[in-house]
């Protein structure tokens, strides 16, 4: 009879916990008494990550799936504005000793776990406040947004970002501003569709604005817009119109998840963007509105956390997305 060692020249490793493995690797987990295989997913999957210590929704996010950052938001009673900043290491969250200088929710967030940017939001007044994160603490920028806004969105990084939409006087803002690392400049042209509670992903010269609330009584949109560094152009529509969603990735490889299809509700729907069109992918296990995202993450390795699990309370759940073609651990079964 053929043996694994006879075929491959080495035995299956016997380990106590699943290793970080390349596609095709096989091992035996002696804690769970199971043979395991690193195999690529065909459609992508969500898996549970470490629970976030601060129950919140409509907070800001930055970083990646293995180095994530969460800041601000509304607390579990849906009224307390938070400064709390939590860091994710791919397994668990820790709360930073210090938080944002300005407590707020519905703010924008971009960047990495060591260099992030927080802007706008509600305090509960419309806020223009802009803060920089250096991996340890937040510093208030001397100048803020030119147009103070809540329910704002954006994309980019700490030195080159775009803020768009939100709820400024006049509601459903089309206003956009460019960040150069030290100050915001109003863009001469704005969004084609004014929106708030939208999501954005990409870089300052190649970003996407998607979804959001566009009218009274919670009317939501499925439209998305493409930003080329100067102006926005309408592009493909999402399959599911919603606001309060979150996203990550690039202009040609993005991901969105969660949100609300009406005034206040919660969905688990997730979609991928390929640069021109959207396609549905497996849903989150827990539907959530005002969900957080590590906005610097990729389409293949995204991170979702917190959110309003209406009609249930706000959620502490974190979910990790692994996209098609990326190896994940599978249990080998014989039947």
């Amino acid at each position, binding site marked *: 009879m053929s043996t694994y060692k006879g075929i491959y020249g080495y035995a299956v490793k016997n380990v106590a916990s699943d290793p970080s493995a390349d596609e095709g690797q096989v091992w035996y987990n002696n804690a769970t008494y199971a043979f395991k295989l690193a195999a690529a*997913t065909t*459609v992508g*999957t*969500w*898996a*549970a*990550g*470490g*629970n976030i210590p601060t129950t919140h929704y*409509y907070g800001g996010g930055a970083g990646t799936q293995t180095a994530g950052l969460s800041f601000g938001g*509304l607390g579990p009673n*849906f*009224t307390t504005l938070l400064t709390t900043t939590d860091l994710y290491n791919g*397994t*668990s969250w820790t709360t930073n000793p210090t938080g944002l200088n300005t407590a707020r*929710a*519905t703010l924008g967030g971009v960047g990495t776990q060591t260099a992030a940017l927080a802007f706008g939001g*509600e305090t*509960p007044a419309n806020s223009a406040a802009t803060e920089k994160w250096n991996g340890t603490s937040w510093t208030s920028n001397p100048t803020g947004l030119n147009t103070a806004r*809540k*329910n704002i969105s954006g994309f980019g990084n700490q030195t080159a970002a775009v803020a768009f939409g939100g709820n400024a006087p006049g509601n459903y803002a089309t206003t956009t501003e460019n960040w150069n690392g030290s100050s915001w400049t109003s863009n001469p042209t704005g969004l084609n569709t004014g929106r708030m509670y939208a999501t954005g992903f990409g870089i300052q010269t190649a970003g996407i604005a998607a979804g959001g609330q566009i009218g009274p*009584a*919670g009317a939501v949109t499925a439209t998305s817009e493409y930003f080329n560094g100067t102006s926005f152009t309408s592009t493909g529509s999402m399959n599911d119109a919603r606001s309060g969603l979150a996203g990550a990735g690039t202009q040609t490889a993005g991901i969105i998840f969660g949100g609300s299809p009406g*005034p*206040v509700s919660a969905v*688990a729907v997730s979609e991928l963007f390929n640069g021109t069109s959207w396609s549905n992918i*497996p*849903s989150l*296990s*827990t*539907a959530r509105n*005002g969900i957080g995202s590590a906005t610097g993450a990729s389409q293949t390795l995204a991170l979702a956390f917190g959110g*309003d*699990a*209406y*009609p*249930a*309370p706000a959620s502490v*759940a*974190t*979910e990790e997305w*692994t996209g098609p073609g990326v190896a*994940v*651990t*599978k*249990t080998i079964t014989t*039947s």
Partner: protein
Amino acid sequence: MAQNYQYCVAECWGKGFITHDDSSSFQISGFPGNVWQVPANNRKANIWINGIAGVRKTHPEAQAIVDGIIQAAQAEWDAIPADDPRKIQGNPSYRPRPEVIVLPQ
């Protein structure tokens, strides 16, 4: 009537509660009250419930747990003053009266 889903109660402890292997094998949906829905008559789903030490619930039992959470949330909402931000539409704190969730069989 054939059951399409089965239910259990378990508290999500975080990493490892739902793995990529689980998600790629069957659909897992969470509901209020730590109620989890997975396909009925599915061997991997059964293994998952055992693995997370889930307490199996019949459909009526699971529905009763969810109803209890929703009714408590409705009572809490009803007690909020009308001028509270949580009852003012357009405010991010706004939450409409929690609606009943009907779990599929």
